[in-house]
């Protein structure tokens, strides 16, 4: 016990040390992230902008001044944080870490310092910042001091702040300086590099080339051919190409981090609360493999962003070792003081737990366990192999091909060698939104899907209720069978049917109309009538099939509700309104979410089978546009961009609808 490196205070002992709340922590993160990436990046772009943008330069210099002013505050906050304690079971605990942790942290901090100093040195003024980095040992990054206090929202906000600051600042600055196109910009920068001491930059160390080689190897194993036929040279001419990649990587990572970081934080919270007191013993949580994974993910993210900046500067190996720091969460025995005699977790245990967690995978017991597991389940992996290969090749590899939507249209070069398009790759989006055909297709897609939603969506519900109310058993079964029938007809056949049915001279529909003394219809030549027919045929084809889900949901409604309603003398309509419809509510919501998710998605078979050139103004939806312009017209890039737009907007609609449903207290689809 006496060897324990954790100091304890008596319960209720007053201590004058600070208790850090959200604000100091948020402030601390804000400031330290501003200092680390903000200053060097700001200086870097300040120099770049000095060419012609005086105002911009002034703004950046002001910003830098502010940042320097923030420095002492940040250092003070760090000190406060390092003294941070938490109160568990009325015992004030002070965290003092293990030797390894302290050492690792110091190494990390010195590396960070070195790298940042290196940055300044690179830019030509090294002495400025040498005194700035007064680091104290702190608790592991991402760990909140008092698990009992900071909630999910607090963590969420703090992480958003820090992510925004580390990534948004470089990106914003890039875009700001992008007032001059990045191409010129990069050329100017390349000139700068050429004049500087980095003129002898070694291209063989290029990180993009390294990446390419790795991916090439992987792809050639899959038989998909190499990504790039030639060698990559680090020339001024393709410098802007690389920076386009970089900007995209940064933006994507930023978005990913916004999604993943709160989740990671939430996980961290859960690990921390794992340290519960059970039967008077403090349970010490041992870090598991996925803790390390998550930690590495976040550090990896930082690493990539920083590496990206270095790549932009033209050297990228410096920081390779910077982020290999791991933290272990070793927690303080809570009731150790109270139960010192029976306290089981000794210092050795704590130290061993650290080693164990690091070597969790490598120790013999775990290895045996893993071998047993594999002996039992290897065949399941064999079974999964073929579907997994299928999913990768036919679902995920095409996602790599999405990039052609960002590149110039080219059908000769291998995809990976095609240069990026203008407007940072947004060329085709810009072009599509200037294209009358595409705008028409977009309008038609939304219009037809909207009408389907408005008129087609309620039909299965009505039909299911109708079927449910049908008293004659046998008739009900026959009706169901017949209602399902149209679902089994293909759209080609339905279009043939419709052509016959609405034939102006001999069609069944027009015959009936003319016998009733009304004028005939000709939906294949009139836009408005075509739209009506499109919606009606959709209902005809799918309403019956749609009832299956609703009928199943109706059978799940408790029959006692109906019996009670009968006793109360409720009418049929009242029962439908007050029992059946509320019972169907969850099903309706889920199907509505799915429908909203596909409001911009477009089926191909239905409009294509029904369309003709006369009414193409209303019938050509996005999928037909992609087919005609993309596959028939070989404008791959333009239509791939349209496809990206469609997928992304569809996903956004799905998420939005899902969030909305959850807000109203329904179970969503995700």
């Amino acid at each position, binding site marked *: 016990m006496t060897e324990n490196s954790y100091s304890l205070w008596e319960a209720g002992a007053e201590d004058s040390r600070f208790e850090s709340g959200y604000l100091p922590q948020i402030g601390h993160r804000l400031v330290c992230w501003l200092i680390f990436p903000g200053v060097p990046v700001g200086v870097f772009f300040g120099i770049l902008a000095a060419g012609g943008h005086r105002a911009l330069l002034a703004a950046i210099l002001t910003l830098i001044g502010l940042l320097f002013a923030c420095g002492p505050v940040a250092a003070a906050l760090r000190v406060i944080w390092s003294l941070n304690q938490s109160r568990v079971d009325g015992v004030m605990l002070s965290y003092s870490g293990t030797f390894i942790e302290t050492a690792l942290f110091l190494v990390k901090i010195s590396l960070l310092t070195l790298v940042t100093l290196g940055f300044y040195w690179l830019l030509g003024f090294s002495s400025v910042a040498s005194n700035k980095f007064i680091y104290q040992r702190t608790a592991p990054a991402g760990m909140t001091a008092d698990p009992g206090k900071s909630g999910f929202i607090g963590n969420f906000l703090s992480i958003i702040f820090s992510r925004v600051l580390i990534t948004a600042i470089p990106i914003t600055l890039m875009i700001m300086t992008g007032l001059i196109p990045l191409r010129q910009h990069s050329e100017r920068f390349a000139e700068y590099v050429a004049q500087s001491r980095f003129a002898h930059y070694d291209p063989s160390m290029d990180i993009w080339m390294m990446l390419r080689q790795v991916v090439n190897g992987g792809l050639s194993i899959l038989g998909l051919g190499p990504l790039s036929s030639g060698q990559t040279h680090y020339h001024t001419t393709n410098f802007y190409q690389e920076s386009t990649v970089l900007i995209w990587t940064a933006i994507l990572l930023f978005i990913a981090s916004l999604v993943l970081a709160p989740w990671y934080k939430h996980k961290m919270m859960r690990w921390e609360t794992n340290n519960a007191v059970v039967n008077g013993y403090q349970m010490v949580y041992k870090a598991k493999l996925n803790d390390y994974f998550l930690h590495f993910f976040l550090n990896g993210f930082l690493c990539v962003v920083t590496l990206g900046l270095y790549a932009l500067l033209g050297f990228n190996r410096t920081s390779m070792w910077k982020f290999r720091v791991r933290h272990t969460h070793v927690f303080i025995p809570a009731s150790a003081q109270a139960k010192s005699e029976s306290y089981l977790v000794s210092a050795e245990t704590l130290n061993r737990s650290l080693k164990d967690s690091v070597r969790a995978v490598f120790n013999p017991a775990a290895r045996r366990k893993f071998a047993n597991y594999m002996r039992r389940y290897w065949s399941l992996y064999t079974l999964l192999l073929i579907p997994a290969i299928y999913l990768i090749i036919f679902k995920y590899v095409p996602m790599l091909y999405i990039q052609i939507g960002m590149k110039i249209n080219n059908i000769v070069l291998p995809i990976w060698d095609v240069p990026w398009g203008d407007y940072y790759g947004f060329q085709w989006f810009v072009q599509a939104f200037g294209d009358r055909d595409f705008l028409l297709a977009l309008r038609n897609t939304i219009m037809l899907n909207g009408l389907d939603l408005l008129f087609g969506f309620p039909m299965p519900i009505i039909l299911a209720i109708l079927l449910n109310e049908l008293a004659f058993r046998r008739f009900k079964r026959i009706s169901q069978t017949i209602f399902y029938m149209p679902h089994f007809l293909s759209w080609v056949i339905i279009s043939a049917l419709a052509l016959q049915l609405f034939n102006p001279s*001999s069609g069944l529909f027009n015959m009936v109309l003319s016998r009733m003394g009304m004028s005939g219809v000709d939906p294949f030549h009139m836009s408005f009538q075509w739209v009506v027919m499109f919606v009606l045929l959709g209902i005809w084809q799918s309403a019956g099939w749609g009832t299956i889900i609703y009928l199943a949901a109706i059978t799940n409604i408790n029959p006692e509700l109906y019996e009670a309603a009968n006793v109360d003398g409720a009418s049929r309509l009242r029962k439908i309104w007050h029992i059946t419809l509320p019972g169907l509510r969850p099903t309706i919501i889920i199907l509505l979410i799915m429908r909203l998710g596909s409001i911009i998605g477009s089926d191909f078979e239905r409009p294509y089978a029904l369309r003709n050139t006369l009414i193409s103004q209303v019938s050509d939806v996005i999928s037909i546009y992609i087919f005609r312009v993309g596959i028939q017209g070989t404008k791959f890039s333009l239509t791939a961009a349209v496809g990206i737009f469609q997928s992304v907007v569809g996903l956004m609609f799905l998420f939005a609808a899902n969030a909305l449903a959850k807000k109203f207290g329904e179970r969503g689809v995700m």
Partner: protein
Amino acid sequence: MIKSRSTKLGDWVIAFVCFIIILICILPLINIIARSLSNADALMRGEVFLLPKGWNFTAYQRVLTDSKYTWSLGWTAILTVMGVVLSIIMTTLIAYPLIYDNLKGRTLINVAAIFTMYFSAGTIPMYLLLQGIGLYNTWPVLLIPYCLSVFNMIIMRSFFYGVPDSLRESAEIDGAGPVRILISIYIPLSTSVIATLSLFYAVGRWNSYTDALFFMRQEQFYPIQLLLYNLLNALQQIDPAQEVIKTPGVTETLKMAAVMFATVPILLIYPWLQRYFVTGVTLGSEKG
């Protein structure tokens, strides 16, 4: 639903409405059958309603003697059978391992599969991929790219979940491996879901023409729906180069006869599987 209730006026009204809907569902089809069997002149005069006027089987004869059409019909049947077998195997292979709760990486595969339901790369990347790996314009392109439906995988997985774990556990105690358990317990128990999914896959393959339109250039490999689409559209524009049909009346009956051949196989099968596919769709909706 509730036995004690006596039949009232309202029930008759509902039955009548259902009857009208039934008529809406089947009248167009009956009309097509009548047209396909009618005399061309009667058709022109607009006399064909629900019964054929002037019985006439020439359209059916001509369709049956048209070698391109019958070959396509046979080819689509072959494709459908191969496609269903392939799809069912794939679906089982991915659905079965996922019911093992302690399988490492299960969540990953699950998420990876379901993600593709919500986000897909789109048509053009698929087109380029198929060209890249040399499947474009070869007949397997009609089988392989869309052979696994994640939605159907969810249905099958839900069904497998319904099989009592005790069966699996007792088989494990007897020393059976996962594959053995799949073959001797799960597959025999899930014939109904296999039948359902076979129907879904078969209908999908039989009815779709998009993949052939996008990825197939050789006419001898056109599935029936694409052939039909071309036939209908060519005739709609009354192309003089199309020498198959001389007079418009014959055209109409011929079209309708061709449509009937492509429709009847599925319409004959589905009522027998109704009980199964209702369960299948319900299972899918619960987990989806």
